[in-house]
């Protein structure tokens, strides 16, 4: 399982705009490089990132080989209610990782 780091404020006021940051360890092999023996190294990247807030999709990204290794994405959302924010990464070779964070909204 790849290591993921996420940053979500533990507490927020209702209606407040919060920053969410997500980072996951992944080498994001582009598929354009050659090994020392001259063979093309197969592509192995994360292709999709989805963030859901209590089941509702709030942010989605389609990644490409041009995304740097260890993909980092920061974005915003409005804190509407207490609950969980779930992060999901999927990629080549059946790669899949999920992470979640709890948020309490007052």
């Amino acid at each position, binding site marked *: 399982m790849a290591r993921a780091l996420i940053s979500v404020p533990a507490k927020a006021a209702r209606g407040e705009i919060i920053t969410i940051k997500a980072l996951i360890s992944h080498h994001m092999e582009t598929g*354009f*490089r050659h090994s020392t023996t001259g063979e093309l190294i197969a592509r192995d990247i994360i292709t999709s990132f989805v963030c859901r807030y209590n089941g509702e999709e709030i*942010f989605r*990204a389609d990644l490409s080989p041009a995304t*740097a290794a*260890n993909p980092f994405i920061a*974005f915003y959302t409005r804190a509407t209610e207490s609950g969980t924010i779930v992060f999901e990464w999927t990629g080549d070779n059946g790669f899949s990782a999920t992470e979640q964070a709890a948020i309490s909204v007052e």
Partner: protein
Amino acid sequence: MRAAIRTVVGENQINKGKVTLDIPPLVENGSTVACSVAVDSPMTTSDYVTAIHIFNEKNPQPNVIGVHLGPRAGRARFSTRIRLADTQRVIAIAQLSDGSFWSDSVDVVVTLGACLEDS
């Protein structure tokens, strides 16, 4: 790059403005380039940004990243880290809920490119 942009925007006109692509104009190492895109939008249920795409000219593939957001994002802005193979122009295009497209472009000088060096 033009063909990749056409697959996203179709025959719609791309306007200049509203979008701010924040990327350093001079990059030493193209393997990790921090960049962020902000769109001037009230992000209400009637007027919001639906998607933001980043394209480049000279990487092996023109697409960099495409993100999809909605009115509840509150702020039409995101940051990420990208790879740039060479000195080139980077373009960000935002799609608004009314169907219009807005763009911003930045010319980036890359000293050491990413992607193509062998391991």
